[in-house]
């Protein structure tokens, strides 16, 4: 029985949530939340350092650092196994950073209405569940953490969501939850099939025994996983829950939903498709790639038609996740690295965009382009600059993080796995390129509608100190990852992928 310390990243937020509920004053509860979030930030940094120190090559523990192993439910072969590797470490760090920013934002800007202590506690539980999902090395444990995130997020949307639309926010929350749960139950069936075939839920063991299964068995598992995790990503056409959920959620809800929760789906696909059932995934990959590029174009066209900033950012998420899915579906080490990079880049940039949309909503009361009134450059210059910066980062301006996400995904599609049709993927790449152009178009349009124009309305309150604190880490990350992409790519060179690449 070993506990290597990742428990801290799960236990501290849960404990923090408990304390927050018992603290009598809302302000003190917020401070407790920030303290807990800061501790997790330190633990996440430590985990990244450990992974870096262990090096990218698979070591004795199957490439995982900080491995915990303890009996949990012995009779079901379910054990408490945690560990982190170069695939999960960036996502753990992303979760810790985004949650910290959210907790800071909640200090002064909790949505009015319901008791903000509950919101702080729920954000902490979401953090614990997300990190738990990323570091779980047991399929059932992965499933438990995956599900742990849902109820808190449902509460966040249903109770703290859009104040003007009580039925709408409840409907959005329930639609999100029911879709995800249907998906995750299918994912569970896939896990149980794996257990039925191999007799284990242990991810490290499955990386050996999974690829040895028959192609038919692998394909069934891969398709179930694609449907199950696809509902979470969300993969077109299972995306229908997302625009409503994002636009009705409070700011921190949107940030975590886009920045962290969607990553649970893509992380699962990377982990299981590439490492456990690579042969089956090869069968399904062209379909996933096709759905990915459809999502890119569909989302771009939908964005051009949006009249609301929050909904626009939500739809743009579908497109960005399309790039991730395309990268996943190439089934190469480069695709894995690209998908992971695009994951993190999207989390950082879209998180920032939702913060900015929330800030505009706080000031004007709406994110509808008409009611925003434009001319934010004139009415609140710094805020306008932030919006322009985030939009540029999101549309893929070279030098910022978003560029590498899109670029590497298309590059990976240029050279897919030998078992896939290169022609098909060249078509995918071309279509994705068109999507990238459209993405530029709609963000330019959005910036023009929001930021430019003649100042004919009252000035807005410009960016305040607590907002600087909450947004700066994301801005720094967007620039840093844009200028130094090797920060996230160093692991790919060593061929981290055990399954598909090694064959």
């Amino acid at each position: 029985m070993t506990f290597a310390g990742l428990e801290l990243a799960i236990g501290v937020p849960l404990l923090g949530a408990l304390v927050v509920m018992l603290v009598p004053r809302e302000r003190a509860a917020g401070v407790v939340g920030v303290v807990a979030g800061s501790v997790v930030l330190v633990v996440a940094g430590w985990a990244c350092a450990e992974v870096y120190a262990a090096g990218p090559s698979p070591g004795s523990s199957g490439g995982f650092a900080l491995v915990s192993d303890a009996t949990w439910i012995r009779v079901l072969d379910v054990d408490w196994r945690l560990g982190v590797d170069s695939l999960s470490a960036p996502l753990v760090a992303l979760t810790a950073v985004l949650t910290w920013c959210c907790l800071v934002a909640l200090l002064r800007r909790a949505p009015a209405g319901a008791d903000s202590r509950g919101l702080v506690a729920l954000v902490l539980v979401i953090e614990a569940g997300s990190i738990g999902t990323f570091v779980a090395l047991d399929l059932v444990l992965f499933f438990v953490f995956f599900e742990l995130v849902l109820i808190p997020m449902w509460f966040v949307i249903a109770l703290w969501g859009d104040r003007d639309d009580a039925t709408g926010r409840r409907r959005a929350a329930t639609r999100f939850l029911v879709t995800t749960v249907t998906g995750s139950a299918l994912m569970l069936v896939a896990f149980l099939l794996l257990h039925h075939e191999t007799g284990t839920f242990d991810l490290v063991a499955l990386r050996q025994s999974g690829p040895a299964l028959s192609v038919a068995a692998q394909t069934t598992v891969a398709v179930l996983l694609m449907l199950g995790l696809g509902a979470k990503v969300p993969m077109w056409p299972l995306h229908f829950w997302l625009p409503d959920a994002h636009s009705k959620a409070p700011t921190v809800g949107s940030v975590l939903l886009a920045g962290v929760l969607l990553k649970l789906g893509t992380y699962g696909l990377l982990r299981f498709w590439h490492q456990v059932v690579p042969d089956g995934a090869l069968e399904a990959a062209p379909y996933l790639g096709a759905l990915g590029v459809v999502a890119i174009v569909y989302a771009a066209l939908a964005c051009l038609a949006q009249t609301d900033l929050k909904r626009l950012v939500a739809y743009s998420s579908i497109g960005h996740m399309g790039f991730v899915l395309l990268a996943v579906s190439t089934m190469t080490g480069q695709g894995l690295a690209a998908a992971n990079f695009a994951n993190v880049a999207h989390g950082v940039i879209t998180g920032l965009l939702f913060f900015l949309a929330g800030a505009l909503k706080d000031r004007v009361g709406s994110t509808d382009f008409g009611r925003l009134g434009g001319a934010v450059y004139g009415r609140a210059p710094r805020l306008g600059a932030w919006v322009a910066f985030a939009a540029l980062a999101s549309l893929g301006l070279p030098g910022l993080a978003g560029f590498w996400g899109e670029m590497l995904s298309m590059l990976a599609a240029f050279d897919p796995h030998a078992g896939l049709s290169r022609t098909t993927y060249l078509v995918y790449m071309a279509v994705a390129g068109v999507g990238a152009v459209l993405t530029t178009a709609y963000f330019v349009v959005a910036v023009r509608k929001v930021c430019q124009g003649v100042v004919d309305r009252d000035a807005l309150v410009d960016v305040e100190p607590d907002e600087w604190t909450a947004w700066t880490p994301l801005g720094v990350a967007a620039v840093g990852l844009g200028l130094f992409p090797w920060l996230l790519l160093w692991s790919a060179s060593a061929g981290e992928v055990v399954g598909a690449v090694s064959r």
Partner: protein
Amino acid sequence: MTQVVDWGPIAPALWLVGGAVVALLLDVTVPSWRRFGPTMVTLVAVAGAFASALSLVGDEQTAFCLPAVRDGGPAGCSWVVDDVTLVWWVVVLGATALVAALLHPAVAEGDLPAGETCFLLLASATGAVSLAAAGDLVTLVIAMETVSLPVFALVGLRRADRRGAEAALKLFVASVVATAFTLMGISMVYGATGSVVATQVSAAVASGEAVSPVVGVGLVLTLVGLAFKVASVPFQVWVPDTYVGAPIPVAAYLSVVSKAAGLAGLTIVLVRFFPSYGDNWRPVLAAAAALTMTVGNLAALRQRHAVRLLAWSSVAQAGYLLVPLAAGGSGADVGALQSYLLMYALVNVCAFAVVLGASRWGATDVADFTGLYRRNMWLAVALAFALLCLAGLPPGVVGLVAKVVVFQSAVDADLVWLAVVMAVNVAIGLVYYLRFLVVLFRPDDLAPAAPRPGGVPDSIDAVIGLTLAAAVVLSVFPGLLFGPVIP
């Protein structure tokens, strides 16, 4: 012929019968003890039964055995206790004790006659205990009726309540018809195999000397009465009206003990009597499971009344409970069924206890629970946790793991389609569990007309606290529940 009786295996049933008689007599002879006496006797009897059951852990024990009917055939026993039986008993005894505590406030306040209530409760529990140990079909059907008859009376026992009388009548008529089918089925099985004892029936069926079409029809008819107890589709119609008309603790009893008895009976009939007929009854049960969960969940979606919602939810849960049997009823499957049942019994009693507590200040509809968290935090937390366990979502980890186990038995039996149906159903179920859940945490000024919460009697509070604590502990250490039950 002298019948040697081994008292050990039947001691739990004797404790309950003894307790029933003492409770009734105590009420009549010492009226001044009426307030606490019968309830205390009930709890002591259940505790005694529990202790004597614990001493039976280990090897299979039997009582009332007869030699083989013909030379070379197997001997048979009417009372068989093994580790599987003991788990049924734990569910029955535990739930009976909790229901007795839930009934106590009504008994103490004179809404229900003390002696009769406790007598009927223990008598019914005796039937459930006997059913789980039945080794022949006659014992089985008598035990089944012993479970039911006292419940008819319990449902209609509330003084001056015409709805209760109507509910009792509905339950009675439906149940009697179902029992008639079962009796018919048993007579056909007897006619075809020449025996009603498990070992002999299964030997006759396996050897192929029984006339198989007759046995097949007999088996199906026998299952009708048990399916009625479980409230499986198409025998679920009586559930909502009966639950709403009955006193709430009795509804809890119906949803847990009565259902457990039915499942025990189903397991015994299918696994002990007709194991070689698996290919025949497995598809039937799979269809019944899929229909039961779908009908229960879809009907529950539309409910506004708290007890009615829990009633339909219990129908849906019965569908999940049938899945492991449809998977074949191997040792692991029965373990899956029993571990799910243990979880369900625990959290369902908890949910009913909260609803009972709230009914004391007039809350009947789901909307009446608005803002409960603000006003009575622990009640709201307990109900929320119970609903999450029923839905199978964390933090109700014990419910989630129980669902995983049930899914696993379906997948291991290559019933992937049933697993997918169940996956969709789990998602549908969420909608109504969460609709109930969110109401608890809403600001209470949204429902100014909702009745003001008052206090909850100590015995109800104790049940809520106990079940909540158990569910929380089992959510952190699910192995405590699943370890002993799953072989």
